[in-house]
């Protein structure tokens, strides 16, 4: 592990029953990087992100995950101090994971749980700073009109933007985004990608973002990691991600995908 590595995954494996979702994955992430995590469906992208934020244990064994120099999990056991680490890692879930019966506002305000008083947080007495941050984030994504609507009555894209707003309010040092633009229209998608890039460039945040649109990956990220069947099959700059590499990752059919303007 390099000293500058803000996140380090070493020899992480994860088995569900017979299925190997992660297969000896090792990854060093340095402060200020913006990484696209790509790979076919079921290749283990979500599993990897969930393991980093310790929402899931990796298999017992040599696998170790550390963040900010401290352990996250090790030998199949989650570190007991992981809470503090989590407050510094913002996670955007593929399925949004909003609390359906709470308003969009409350859902986004939950982002501040880790940084406000314990009882204040438990009772929902959001400080003015949280309220402003929430409304600013909602406004930034164009969903401030929906602040008082229940999360489960929002449209797919509205929920997704809500989930991203929550991570923003969290003011984390690392952002893990699992397909943050999947349900978004082109303009919203672009806005979200711009925000991630801005957080990375201006605020120096480390970002790992799962993407299915290879073009987004190529455009916004300086490093691309590709998973295939739980294994890291590519780790390098987007410029090296040539057509045959992509075919290697996604299979021979990838040839037909980029009918125009595809990288050659």
């Amino acid at each position, binding site marked *: 592990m390099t000293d500058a590595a803000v996140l380090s995954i070493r020899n992480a494996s994860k088995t569900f029953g017979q299925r190997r979702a992660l297969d000896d994955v090792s990854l060093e992430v340095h402060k200020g990087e913006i990484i696209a995590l790509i790979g076919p469906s079921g290749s283990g992208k979500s599993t990897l992100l969930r393991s980093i*934020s310790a*929402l899931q244990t990796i298999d017992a064994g040599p696998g170790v995950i550390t963040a900010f120099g401290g352990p996250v999990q090790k030998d199949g056991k989650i570190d007991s101090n992981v*809470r*503090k*680490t*989590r*407050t*510094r*890692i*913002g*996670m955007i*879930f593929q*399925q*949004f*994971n*909003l*609390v*359906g*019966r*709470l308003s969009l506002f*409350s859902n986004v305000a*939950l*982002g*501040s*749980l*880790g940084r406000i008083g*314990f009882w204040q*947080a*438990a009772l*929902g007495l959001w400080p003015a700073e949280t309220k402003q941050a929430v409304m600013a984030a909602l406004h930034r994504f164009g969903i401030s009109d929906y602040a008082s609507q229940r999360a489960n009555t929002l449209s797919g894209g509205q929920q997704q933007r809500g*989930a991203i707003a*929550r991570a923003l309010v*969290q003011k984390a040092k690392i952002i893990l985004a699992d397909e943050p633009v999947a349900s978004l229209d082109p303009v919203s998608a672009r806005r979200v990608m711009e925000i991630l890039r801005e957080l990375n460039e201006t605020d120096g945040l480390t970002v790992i973002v799962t993407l299915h649109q290879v073009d987004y990956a190529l455009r916004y990220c300086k490093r691309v990691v590709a998973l295939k069947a739980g294994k890291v099959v590519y780790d390098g700059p987007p410029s090296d991600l040539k057509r045959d590499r992509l075919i290697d990752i996604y299979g021979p*059919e990838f040839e037909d995908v980029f009918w125009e303007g595809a990288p050659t």
Partner: protein
Amino acid sequence: MTVQPGAIPPPPVRTLAQRAPDLLIWGCLIGLLAIAFGPAELYKLPLLFSNSANMQELGRGFITPDFTHWTLYVGKMWQTIQMAIWGTSLAIVTAIPLGLLASRNITPAFIQVPIRRLLDVVRSVPDLVIGMIFLVAVGPGPLAGVMALAIGTSGVLAKLFSEATESIDRGPVEGVRATGGAKLHEIVWGVIPQVAPLWTSYALYRFESNSRSATVLGLIGAGGIGQVLVDSMNAFDYSSTAAIVLVIIVAVSLIDMLSQAIRSRLL
């Protein structure tokens, strides 16, 4: 278009080993029903139809409710409701932490299992014993009844609360966890909003059954509608019984409607 290579695989078949637990459970249940058929005298069931005249005759006593003492009944109903409201409220206050501690998806096994067994014990101790324990401390009357209701109800509610908690969707909880919220925050923001409608309906169900409960209150002299009901039945006075039952029906229906109203706000 492109089709996946290879032949279409056959549909999945569950092996005997995978089915074994299900077969075991169903086999046991059917076996038990068969074994219990004789001792439970189920073969006498046809009597239910051949002797239906008896039932009608008995029922006849109930068709002329006697509302002479209706103020007494309503007063007693009110008295029971007052005890039930305190008993149930105290029970809820204890059942919430106990229920959460007894949930496998919230609490580690080394705490969850003992709590679960403790709750089993609380539910197993007879009402009368619980009632008597409070009776000798605070004397006969409403308070002993309230405490007895509170203990008995908390055992049941904590169990029901925990099983509702175990059925929740873990997505929202993980969402809260990932923000770095503490366990309590996960519960307040991830668990409670999901279980609120069910917990409310359990609490109101127990409030309702405490309000019509005769057993423990009557046993220890706490009075209430149940006592009056038992007395009227003891005197073979079915007209009064019918009137009392009608009072209870009205109360139960009101509580049920309240329950639905609160739940529909939460759903």
